[in-house]
């Protein structure tokens, strides 16, 4: 497998070496992550595939500064996240990371626009909330509350909220997990477009192997290890992917 030229030119955003995560549950030690090495470049779209319990969520959480590895090192640019304090991790998330959750996690008491402003209010160089919502095709639903939006619309608001601060890294945990196929495809194409247009580095968790075809890199995980790395020479259009 050869590295694509694009990857070689691009700067490294996240670099992990020998990451391991051990949970102690009573007297049982669970190795959620075993000796994972990973490099994520500027603008790269990474798809993490694996069954539940394969460690992909643990990896994503550690990359996003929600969790810390038991051993190994993780760098965001020059900053060593594996040595950061909880407050520094919060600042890292605040300044550089966007999250998209399976269940959207919108704030029910805020409108679409306000859910986005929640993030732009605390970001250094954000988009206008309207601009972010236009990017996900919701310019006409600005003042709707979550309860007034469909699942796909809610997830697009969540994506707008995640990208509005122009994060360098966007992490998506099963973003289509709660959606039907057609709506799921719509959400993925929004993510794809955001990646292409803004150059945001992205990691998407899914258990749907077909989705792997839209990424630059696909990591297959099993029992906390990366068992297979695939680099797609050409990313497939989301519309072409069938599942």
């Amino acid at each position, binding site marked *: 497998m050869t590295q694509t030229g694009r990857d070689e030119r691009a700067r490294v955003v996240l670099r992990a070496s020998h990451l391991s995560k051990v949970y102690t549950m009573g007297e049982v030690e669970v190795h959620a992550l075993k000796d994972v090495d990973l490099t994520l470049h500027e603008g790269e779209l990474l798809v993490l595939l694996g069954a539940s319990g394969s460690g992909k*969520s643990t990896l*994503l*959480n550690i990359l*996003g500064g*929600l*969790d810390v590895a038991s051993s190994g090192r993780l760098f965001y640019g020059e900053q060593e996240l594996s040595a950061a304090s909880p*407050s520094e991790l*919060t*600042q*890292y*998330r*605040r*300044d550089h*990371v*966007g*999250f998209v*959750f*399976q*269940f959207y*996690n*919108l*704030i*029910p*008491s*805020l409108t679409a626009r*306000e859910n986005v*402003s*929640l*993030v732009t*209010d*605390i970001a250094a160089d954000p988009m206008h909330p309207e601009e972010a919502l236009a990017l996900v095709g919701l310019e006409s639903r600005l003042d709707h*509350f*979550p*309860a007034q939006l469909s699942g796909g619309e809610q997830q697009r608001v969540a994506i707008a*909220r*995640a990208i509005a601060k122009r994060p360098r890294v966007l992490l998506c*945990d099963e973003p289509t997990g709660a959606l039907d196929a057609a709506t799921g495809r719509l959400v993925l194409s929004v993510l794809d477009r955001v990646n292409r247009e803004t150059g945001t580095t992205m990691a998407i968790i899914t258990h749907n192997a077909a989705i792997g075809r839209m990424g630059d890199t696909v990591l297959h995980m099993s029992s906390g290890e990366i068992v297979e790395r695939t680099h797609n020479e050409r990313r497939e259009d989301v519309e072409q992917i069938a599942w």
Partner: protein
Amino acid sequence: MVNGRGPGSWLRMPALQRKLLRECWHLKGQLLSIALVVATGIMTVITMRGSYESLIEAQQRYYNDMRFAEVWSSLRRAPDSVRARIQALPGVALADTRVSFLATLDLEGLDAPAQGRFVSLPERSRPQLNDLLITRGRYVDAASPDEVIISEKFANARGLLPGDSLRAIINGRARDLDIVGIAISPEHSYSVPPGSLLPEDERYGVLWMSIRALGPAYDMDEAFNEVFVTLAPGASERAVITRLNDLLEPYGGYGAYARRDQASHMMLQGELDQNRVMGTAIPAVFLGVAVFLLHLVLGRLIATQRGEIAVLKAFGYRDGEVGRHFLMFALLAVLIGAAIGTVGGVMLGRSYIGIYRQYFDLPGLQYQLSPGLLMLALLVSLTGAVSGALGAVRKAVALPPAEAMRPEPPVRFRPGFLERMGAGRMLPAAGRMILRNVERKPVQAFFSSLGVAFSVSILIIGLFMFDGVTHLIDLQFRKIQREDISVSFLQNVSASARYDLGRLPGVTRVETYRGAPVRLRNGHWSRETVIQGMESDGVLRRIVTVDGVVHPVPAEGVVLSQVLARRLHVQTGDWLIAEMLEGRRQSKRVRVTGIVEDFLGVTAYMDLAALHGLSGEQDVISGAYLSVQADERDNLYRQLKQVPAVAGVASPASMLASFERELARNIFISVGFLVGFASVIAVGVIYNGARIALSERGRELASLRVMGFHRREVATLLLGEQAVVTLIAIPLGWLIGYGLAYLMVESLQTDTFRIPYVIAARTYWVAALITIVAAAASAFVVRRRLDSLDLISVLKTRE
């Protein structure tokens, strides 16, 4: 091994019960805060109502044992033969007579003069009525004329013991008396020197002596100047008073009065009445608040268990079983609360009674818990808990399990009223979230605020009393009693005495007064009181209203205190008949030329010259107010002790000192209780409110943390809502406190004493501050829990 019966029984315990125990442990903070609210409710009932009942019982027993009289009269002098005629009056069960005088005591080491109330004891056996209880030493021996028994409080204050001696100026002659015993009596449970407002045990005591010693000293051989009777069953007190007055008229009777007007009884009864009001009102408020909180908090708590209820139902548990399971939580809270409240209430009741024991001589006074009272408090708390829990449980079990297991749909929000008014644009997103959450559940927010408001109002009704008393002290000692000392004479003297007084060392100003006992009559309404004749251009004593306004002494007519005017059904401009009860005892019409609202007593004021006209006596005075140079005061006291005509010398400064000492102690105790109680309520509402909001919105808040919000920012969102609740509660609590204080003033008002309805601005702020501190403390505890929010769970499925 929760139940301590070994692992076997733990395993046999039904899973549902194990769940209950585990959850109670998990929710221990909330459980405890609810239990504490119940505990305060029960505790106040047990402490305050319980000590009231104990006091009443001790009072009744004491009165019976001492054969406390029911009607009293003082008179100038009557021969002993009159006693049989009094005994023969219809309606009189028992009659007893005695001799009683005020005299100056010459005590070592006391700069200000002291006074003694000398009371005669019969030669043989004990008094038939108004007996005394010897607490140390022995009864007097009629054969030894210098033996004396002194009142216990005076003895304690002066450190006097049987065997000590004491010098008194009796009828102008110094006499050394041997103390043989120390005693208490219901007549003097609360002994206030003439002209004072509060007991001054250091310088006022009661001294009992044999009639054989006291009679001759006061020219009362085979005569008496006090009589008291008990009533035959069914006799009319009013009729007996009238008959007694008629009988004593020729002997210079000063007017008979009933037990309720007896000074010591009145003070004690006033305290007991106050205790009854407090012992009813405060526990009612507390128990009400406790019940309300139980309802509120349990309701919300159970609402958060919606999913679990569904799962239980899906497994085949019946509604009744599920309902019982959640009701157990309520019952547990009440039972823990009742246990703490009962133990705490009894302990507090004992210390409460301990204070009363220092204050009143009520032998055998002990705190007693009545089981009926406890049952009542428990029942009311249980009702509140069960009704609150039941509502929420019923709502939860009403849902079909499949529906209940689904996450609740996103809550419908829409811009509320305030936002439509444009308030939203001025707020940041966090502010809007807080505002919408409050607006979405306005009823819940209102009731939470109401709960906290009660804590504010409880503080206000506790603290405002001190404002009233401070106001009263200020009025009494800075606006009314402006003399350095007041001198009272044994009997009325010629007004020329003012020149003698003016010549005494250090005296810079003399204003004379006359206190004339009188019966004021308007039709069939009548009232015995004292007309205060005062110099109309005086500056040392003036008529001052509750508002601190000086009311001029009119040249003609009488000025009545408002309560007296109400009793007599007169208004300014009306006429009264004044029957003088001393001197020539003439009756004359007098016009009411003013009515003033004052705090103490049922007083009538007149210009001194006008009073002379009314009584038909020229230029007599019964005392004087003096301004004295500070450095000459001791010298003056020494000289006044030598003047035979002087019955007593009082100094407002020493009255003020004893008043303030008493007040400081009371403030300390009451404020301690109230701050504790109010804090429990505030914590109960705020802590539970925040904890429940946390479980309702934990996911939302965790999402924000994932997005990079700092802990402080997320805490602002959660606790902001509680802050809004608290801020709404404060003015609401002020309003409730204002109303409750008014009710309190009204129900505590007696003839002789009114708490001024004055609430200082400081009281409002202190009440608000204490509540805010309690709320902030609860917020801090919840904040710590918020810090440990599980961020990763947010990425997982819905709860």
